[in-house]
């Protein structure tokens, strides 16, 4: 290594020479060079003692990493569905049309500021909403300053019950949060045994808020049944387009999450805790890290080792077994289940993986009691749910509602109905792993599990309202294309099925589809849903299936 490289990669050299340093190492060289250069890869290969092709394969499994030097200051234009509904396509055109050769326009998948679109990011700084002029200004060398995003959190509306969001907007330093009772839930939990604390959570009926709604207490009990050492992994990847709840919690009330993860650590008697945080969520990362530092300094960690790991893109990185592979330093592809992570997770040890929002519910369960927690929501699914509402509504933003609240209440009472007085023609619920709901289904109660035979699901709580500014067929194709782009490529049905589904939908849109297109799409749907390795592939056909269920006419229009 040349001297200049040695100094350039100083951050790399400081990392432990273990495979688990893989992603931090790749971040370090990408930060140093502005891209993942061959010289940087050679340094990582040497430092971590990983053969170069194996390393290259691992690096190439993260789609936020760039393998070519940037051709100018990168301006990333979010082309998530919500931003497209807010005019992102035109924005990208406008920036390109400026002819500014010092910038490079990159159309990227969701940047998770869905309520504020269209969104542009320059060097991890966000302009939202953006236009061509503010975007180009932000990219000027001397003008690259932090641009503050508009507030996502609005004033409390009638349909809301704010528990997790109770203190968003208030000061979030440790001193302030302790005044309002933070860490009292942790004290209560620590006053009992881990087993007893697990029983409390089981009794509360809390279910996982990442989208699967699996009973948290049962998951903990399963992990506790296996010999330690155990690990806790906090899934803060939040890579689903249209969802921005975990980020918001971490940015605005990080101690709530830290308290929650410490309760979980105590209950399952975990030896170490990893927070796996989206690679783009810099504000959340810095808020969380400060909170951990504060908690540590105040002696609140109780000897627990809490480490923040940053992802590097990829919807599939939110899949829990991918997080395990990623932390261990392997390719970001799903593992085979069984065994489940509670039995054999990180480094083969029992591992509980909980979502940020799930953990944020814990302090109040221990402070205010199980009964209080169960006082809202339904008997089966008690508590509240954070809803990331975006798209064609008057008041997009983050809301907290009791589980079981109707979709209509969310759209109308909270969202204020269609934007600009336009009609809401449909919503996408559950993002690219969910589907479309027509107005006739707006009275459905928002609960975990399937909302609709067509495929829509509450999932992580992302709801995107659709008006007539984009053709429905294009929305379905957009979601299918997203799933094709995000397929990790490991299993055949998803890798081969998703692009074919995208292509067929595109052919329908352009009037070039074969006569048996729907039959082929149905066959792909069945193969992907029944045979794929992980949830991404198993649910990748749902946008199509929901359109076929509720909007058949938009699909049949384009047959040859």
């Amino acid at each position, binding site marked *: 290594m040349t001297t200049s490289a040695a100094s350039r990669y100083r951050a790399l050299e400081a990392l432990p020479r273990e495979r688990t340093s893989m992603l931090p190492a790749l971040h370090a060289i990408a930060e140093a060079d502005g891209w993942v250069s061959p010289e940087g890869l050679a340094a990582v290969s040497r430092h971590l003692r990983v053969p170069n092709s194996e390393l290259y394969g691992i690096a190439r499994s993260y789609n936020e990493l760039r393998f070519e030097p940037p051709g100018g200051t990168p301006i990333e234009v979010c082309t998530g569905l919500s931003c497209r509904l807010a005019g992102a396509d035109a924005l990208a055109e406008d920036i390109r049309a400026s002819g500014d050769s010092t910038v490079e326009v990159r159309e990227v998948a969701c940047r998770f500021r869905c309520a504020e679109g269209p969104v542009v990011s320059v060097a991890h700084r966000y302009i939202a909403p953006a236009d061509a002029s503010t975007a180009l200004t932000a990219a000027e060398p001397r003008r690259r300053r932090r641009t503050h995003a508009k507030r996502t959190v609005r004033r409390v509306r009638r349909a809301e019950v704010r528990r997790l969001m109770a203190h968003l907007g208030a000061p979030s330093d440790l001193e302030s949060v302790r005044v309002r009772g933070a860490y009292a839930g942790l004290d209560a939990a620590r006053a009992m045994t881990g087993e007893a604390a697990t029983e409390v959570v089981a009794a509360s009926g809390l279910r996982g808020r990442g989208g699967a709604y699996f009973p948290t207490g049962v998951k903990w009990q399963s992990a506790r049944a296996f010999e330690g050492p155990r690990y806790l992994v906090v899934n803060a990847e939040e890579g689903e387009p249209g969802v921005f709840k975990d980020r918001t919690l971490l940015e605005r009330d990080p101690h709530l999450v830290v308290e929650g993860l410490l309760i979980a650590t105590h209950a399952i008697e975990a030896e170490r805790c990893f927070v796996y945080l989206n690679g783009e969520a810099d504000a959340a990362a810095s808020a969380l890290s400060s909170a951990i530092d504060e908690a540590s300094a105040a002696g609140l960690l109780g000897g627990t080792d809490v480490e923040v790991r940053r992802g590097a893109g990829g919807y599939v990185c939110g899949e829990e077994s991918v997080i395990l592979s990623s932390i261990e330093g392997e390719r970001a592809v799903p593992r085979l289940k069984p065994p489940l992570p509670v039995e054999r997770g990180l480094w083969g040890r029992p591992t509980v993986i909980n979502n940020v929002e799930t953990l944020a519910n814990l302090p109040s369960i221990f402070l205010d009691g199980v009964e209080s927690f169960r006082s809202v929501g339904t008997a089966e699914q008690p508590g509240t749910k954070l809803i990331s509402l975006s798209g064609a509504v008057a008041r997009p933003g983050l809301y907290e509602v009791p589980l079981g609240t109707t979709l209509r209440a969310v759209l109308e009472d909270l969202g204020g109905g269609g934007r600009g007085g336009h009609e809401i023609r449909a919503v996408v619920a559950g993002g690219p792993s969910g589907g479309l709901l027509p107005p006739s289904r707006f009275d459905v109660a928002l609960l975990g599990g399937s909302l609709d035979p067509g495929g829509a699901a509450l999932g992580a709580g992302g709801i995107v309202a659709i008006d007539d500014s984009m053709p429905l067929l294009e929305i379905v194709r957009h979601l299918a294309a997203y799933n094709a782009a995000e397929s990790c490529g490991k299993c055949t049905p998803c890798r081969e099925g998703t692009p074919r589904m995208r292509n067929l939908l595109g052919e329908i849109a352009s009037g070039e589809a074969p006569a048996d297109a729907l039959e082929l799409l149905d066959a792909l749907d069945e*193969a992907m849903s029944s045979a794929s390795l992980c949830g991404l592939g198993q649910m990748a056909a749902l946008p199509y299936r929901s359109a076929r269920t509720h909007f058949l006419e938009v699909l049949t229009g384009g047959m040859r």
Partner: protein
Amino acid sequence: MTTAPEATRTLALTIDGARVEVPAGATVLDAILAGGSHVPHLCKDDDQEPLGACRTCLVEVEGVRGFPASCYLAATDGMAVRTRGEALDRVRTNVLDLTLGMVEPGGRGASALAGEAERYGVGGRFAARAERHLDDSTPAFSLNLADCILCGRCVQGCQDVQHIGAIAVLGGGEAAHIGTHLDEPLVDSICTSCGTCVSVCPTQALSPKPEPAPVAQEVSTTCGYCGVGCGVGLQIDADGRLGWVEDRPDNPSSQGMLCVKGRFGLTFVQHEDRLTTPLIRRNGVLEEATWDEALDLVADKLVEHRGSFAALASAKATNEDAYVLQKFVRGLMGTNSIDHCTRLCHSPSVEAMLMQLGSGATSNSYEDYDNAGCLMVVGSDTSSNHPVIASRLRRAIDERGAQLIVVNPKRIELCDYATYFLQPQPGTDVALFNGLAKVVLDEALVDEAFVRDRTRDFEAFAASLEEYTPERVEEITGVPADDIRGAARLYARPPFSGSCVLWGMGVTQHTCGTDNAHALVNLALMTGQMGKPGSGVSPLRGQNNVQGCGDAGCIPDNLPGYQGLGDTNRAKFEAGWGVELPSEQGLRATEMFELAAEGGLRAMYVTGENPLLSEPYIAHAEEAIERLDFLVVQDIFPNETTAHADVVLPATSFAEKDGTFTNSERRVQRVRKAIAPVGQSRPDWEITADLARRVAKRLELSQSQFAWTDASEVFDEMASLTPILGGISYGRLEGAGIQWPCPTPDHPGTPRLYGETFSVGRAPFVAVEQGPPAAELPNRRFPLILNTGRVLYHWHGGTITTRARVLNERMPELPVAIHPRDAAKADIEDGGDVEVLSRRGQLTGKAVVTDAVQPGSIFVPFARLGEFSANYLTNAVYDPKSRIPEYKVCAVRIAKPGAPDTWRRGRGSGRGGRRGG
């Protein structure tokens, strides 16, 4: 895991209504295959963990939603599994159809999938999207992405089996493909052409070049290259030609791994250059002769020179070949002057270990490398010379977190994995090892109990270390004192389990080779890293049967089984063989040439050795050979030594005969005949026995002592006289082979020596001192140090590997590794020609400019590639204790061919042959 340990319970389930019993731990796929049902399983290798990628082994399980993949679904008692069903068939058919859409219609991949396609009625429902990239860059195999279904088995083989990591799945989704670092051609990657990927590819996207003919039979045998002892399956076509070489997962030494030489390098056995008839020199020319003519002539001549005769055995031949030869030499020729190439590789190790431990063999098993917490590799480029052991080392490091210490003047591949890389100046190993020992002593890391109970002479040894402080040793060796401390601590107190030390020629091929070995053994003894799991001392044996050749008695100072030449032992063999045996120690190989040069030796019988390439200072050895009255050479190819022979006898290769090899972990393994003998060639032991009968007749001795009818009879006789092999017979070698000592037929063999005792009683420490680094050191005229050794793609002298197409194409020219600083000084460019000159000769090679060698050192393999070999240059000076030549250090200079060389004036040209200077 798909296999359960023995004696676990079985469980019963039904597959398509039929009851199937499998061991607990089995998967549903195991049960399906055990019960004779069928599901496709494109990504599941029989011997590897499931990948779950192809999604074609789907099943229905009663009471379970959906269609789980059976390859990673645990079988449970009472489970009811169906492999067919309307919806299931439909899903599987669509998945197979998508798979078929990945490959080029009409190609190898499509043809490999045709059976499943037909079975499930699959047909072109989805448009094909085959990748069209063909990587044809290596001579061994091609990678055609148009036939690839991305099952991932090749990557599993490369990364998880071999731990090489030359190929990977690159990118995601539809862009995913098999490729190398930066998508460079395979030939420019770190791929070593081990062929594991080729062997596991289900669609022949990875396929050998040229494509082998259909297999008529596969014969399981043992690889004939290095001492690892890998199991190989030789696939033979209907014409009796050797085609593909399959790995053998059931072989415990190689566990299904092979290297490029074993996989692609065995084609030499049917190379057109093979010797096919006996040859007799008439009027200075070797002419074809009959076996009778040749053997009668040899018998006449050897009888004539009885008393002035010596023989070289071959470490490439079988135990049986070796046993028969030494019996002939001792019993009929009346001399113990028999030796083999161990003299040139591990005689110092054997010398030191025999004295201190009672045996010169590796004390542990390869399994101990798997379990060790610390692995110290000294003077061995394991990745080149014992590639499968290197794979096991990498696996221990990757998967179990073992720590690696590399000691080598050259940066080798394993350094990429090392915690400590100690790079001493050539010839300073004694100081370094003593320095390590000094740290162990000073930091109270000595295993007191072991030293007290198992060793002697510790105090004198401890006192001898006084001068070897890390700082002082840093001055001598150039190795930083802190690294010496760190490595010593790591070796003495590994993070878990024990420590193994492995070494190669870098320790032994010095004038202080035996001292080096003593110093290593001292270190192992003082830390107690011996006899317990995960510990041990391992001189890695070079030739496939160098262990066995010594075991069988082809050494001048011992009868078979390391039984000394004393009266009792001689009496036992005299009774067994019915002859009187010589009591005087015979000549060692290097002494044979010295005596021949002086005219004191008149006849030699050289089998499977090529001293005129392997001896140091070849020109000198050539003169010695020229002075013999009679030289008979028995080999498979014409070589530098046959060129000087009076009679040449064509022997068979390992592929054409039955027998046994004993590998580096003392495992006796079967060698089985796979092809017909080439031409009139015969197995070595048969030739020697035939010759012996003719000699016996002339000496009026009984011929019945050389009348075996097959190799197993030879083995049985050897076992009956050799306690360490006493319990072994061919019948017992059908499975995994047996590790000696194995004294009785019910003895399981011995994976690890010295658990309780040493045969020498208490193991003595032997204090050794650092002397001058080498006999010949650089000066103004010869400013560089030449280090010699081996490379992955060639075997020793290269006689064999230059006749294996793939190996020769991978490395056709002699590489000369030069540090950039020295290359710049001599105006030599990477890839350009370079001349290397020593006081004894010169060679021309291809410059490889690399910082893997230290400034002031160059490295040249001793294989003869093209016209040249390193031993034209090396120095014929010897370790006084073991008589090994100092191959590792001599003084040379380099020059650009044609460039003015101030030292060249008045000197002739030629490849060697000049004395002194």
